[in-house]
């Protein structure tokens, strides 16, 4: 292919390079033009030391560079370089929800640092306005230190609460102060947009503290209060077993609070709260309470499957603003008898993550099809982490997958890589997603992925070619790992690679399905 460039004098009378023939590119190759000749003939003096300073770069370009930094440590280094960089980095940390840097207060030393160090010029000790408070680590900590840490939350919240936009708070079941101190959140964190509550153990007492602290409605029927068995240490002379003691204690706590009359709440509403994450299994009482009080303003929700399956509220109400839903430890209950995640209750949902894999729940193809059929068609990103029971595939299910309602908005789909073993089914599924751009096939197997992939490489490439041929919108197919499952199961395996399939030229797909490894850390 000819590549031509011409540079003309501004007055048009001298062509430095005649064009000759061209196929539509620049008229003659700029590389071939001696630079000295080019500019001397134009009468332009090239500045020998023409060097631009980085500080002259407009703020939006600085922003573009900083946002590309993958490692938060690099981001933090940048805010130490100069005041302009600090201002820009802080802005990104505070406004970009994907930035994960947060200030951590999880020990007495960190607490001391926060309280006794002079505050920064802006008076804000939280660069990202994100705070993580409490003892998240399972390493032992002295009871007195733990008490002090949680008692100090009152002071920290009064002094700094209004500056925090995102709060992660850990409640420890054995430390009642950790649950009681939650009451400072609605009063002092008026600007809070995101709240994550981690519950290390759940008891009736913890549930009652949370409900009181946030002014959540109590369940109308006391029997709806989830009643986790709590094991207590036996006291001398007590003839009851630890389990019996625990049940008695839980009953006492439940009855003393949940049987009281419902009083109208005087706890202020967190008006700006739009993202809620409750990390605890079996907490329908809490989740139902939060959904009843905050459901109409939530845009993002992350909970475990049992909390919404066993609750009453999620299944019976609409969440008009909810755009993102993550359900972890998902079980079959989410699907039958009627999918909880449906177009009826989530009419504006754009992103859904459902992780069946962590709870080791296998589902049948028929259940998967039922689940997919109910989903709102507004979804743009769908991540279903599941291992299917491939032995139970009926002809009827195979036919149903090809007649699913179309997903017109879906552009990113993650499903199990085991679909590769049944390419016809995979193609039928993809035929229902006309605008798919990225297909992520998730590896859930526990074997040596690399060996497995190498053995199947030719077969997989052939499947990929077929997929690319039939789906013109598709840009990439990525083989990815379910990170959560892998961390949980195989700590010693630290595969840093995934496999990416793509085509550069669609006119030649049959020959040109390319494969490369990509650093896993680069993939969002």
């Amino acid at each position: 292919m000819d590549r031509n460039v011409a540079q003309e004098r501004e007055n048009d009378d001298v062509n430095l390079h005649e064009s000759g023939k061209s196929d539509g590119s620049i008229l003659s190759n700029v590389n071939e033009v001696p630079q000295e000749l080019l500019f001397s003939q134009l009468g332009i003096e090239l500045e020998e030391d023409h060097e631009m300073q980085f500080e002259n770069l407009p703020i939006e370009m600085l922003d573009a560079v900083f946002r590309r930094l993958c490692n938060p440590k690099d981001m933090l280094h940048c805010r130490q370089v100069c005041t302009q960089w600090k201002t820009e980095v802080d802005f990104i940390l505070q406004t970009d929800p994907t930035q994960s840097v947060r200030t951590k207060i999880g020990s007495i030393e960190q607490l001391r640092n926060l309280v006794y160090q002079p505050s920064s010029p802006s008076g804000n000790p939280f660069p990202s306005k994100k705070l993580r408070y409490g003892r998240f680590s399972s390493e032992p900590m002295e009871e007195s230190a733990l008490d002090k840490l949680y008692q100090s939350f009152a002071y920290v919240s009064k002094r700094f609460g209004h500056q925090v936009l995102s709060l992660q708070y850990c409640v420890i079941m054995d430390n009642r102060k950790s649950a009681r101190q939650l009451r400072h959140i609605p009063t002092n964190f008026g600007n809070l947009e995101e709240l994550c509550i981690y519950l290390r153990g759940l008891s009736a007492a913890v549930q009652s503290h949370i409900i009181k602290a946030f002014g959540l409605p109590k369940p109308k029927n006391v029997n709806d209060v989830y009643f986790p068995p709590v094991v207590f240490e036996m006291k001398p002379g007590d003839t009851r077993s630890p389990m019996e003691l625990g049940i008695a204690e839980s009953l006492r706590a439940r009855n003393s609070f949940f049987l009281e009359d419902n009083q109208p709440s005087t706890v202020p509403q967190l008006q700006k709260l739009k993202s809620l994450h409750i990390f605890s299994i079996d907490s329908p009482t809490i989740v139902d309470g939060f959904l009843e009080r905050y459901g109409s303003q939530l845009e993002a929700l992350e909970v475990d499957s049992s909390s919404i399956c066993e609750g009453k509220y999620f299944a019976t109400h609409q969440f008009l603003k909810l755009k993102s839903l993550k359900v972890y430890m998902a079980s079959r209950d989410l699907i039958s008898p009627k999918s909880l995640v449906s177009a009826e209750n989530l009419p504006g949902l754009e992103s859904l993550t459902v992780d069946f894999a962590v709870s080791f729940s296998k589902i049948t193809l028929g259940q998967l099809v039922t689940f997919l059929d109910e989903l709102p068609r507004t979804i743009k990103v769908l991540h279903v982490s599941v291992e299917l029971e491939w032995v139970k595939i009926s002809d009827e299910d195979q036919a149903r997958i090809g007649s699913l309602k179309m997903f017109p908005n879906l552009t990113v789909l993650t499903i199990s890589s085991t679909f590769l073993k049944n390419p016809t089914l995979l193609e039928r599924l993809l035929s229902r997603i006309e605008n798919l751009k990225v297909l992520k096939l998730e590896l859930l197997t526990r074997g040596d992925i690399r060996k497995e992939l190498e053995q199947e490489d030719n077969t997989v490439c052939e499947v990929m070619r077929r997929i690319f041929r039939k789906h013109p919108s598709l840009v990439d197919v990525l083989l990815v790992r379910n990170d959560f499952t892998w961390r949980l199961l195989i700590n010693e395996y630290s595969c840093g690679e995934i496999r990416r399939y793509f085509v550069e030229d669609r006119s030649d797909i049959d020959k040109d399905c390319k494969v490369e490894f990509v650093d896993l850390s680069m993939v969002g």
Partner: protein
Amino acid sequence: MALVRVISSDGAAFLVSQRLAKRSGKLKTEIETFRKSSDNSEAQPEIRIVTIRAEILRLVLQWLQQHQNDPVLPANQNEQDGRGDAEMGQSQWDRDFLAPMDLGIVMELILAANHLEVKGLLDITCKLVESKITGRTVDEIRTAFKLKSDFKGNEEEQTRLENRWCVEN
């Protein structure tokens, strides 16, 4: 073949095919505006880029020429498909193209790519700058970018302390 004349801030004129020029969002808009306002459909558009000097404009055109057959990426490609830029890959030609440039030139290229709306070039130049930050200490970053600390009093120490309390989520 339809041509367009693109003139740099220091007066150098580049005669470029319209097909190639239209791979820049900015030039495409200018050409279309010219077509709408011109009575003569054969007239050759002339576009002055007052913010980009010849040396930089030449590099942009060189990059466009090399990548003339790439798919044109929408400006918000990554938001749409959930992938990072790194996944888009960088060719050996791109690496050779950028290798001899000092940071000053790269920064001018970033500005030019942004102004002319050439997303692919913007991505690789920003990535190069990013690589000058990744894994370096604060002093090394200052040296690489020829920047001096302008913190007053205990501001720098305070910033360092704030960073010490930070963790990745």
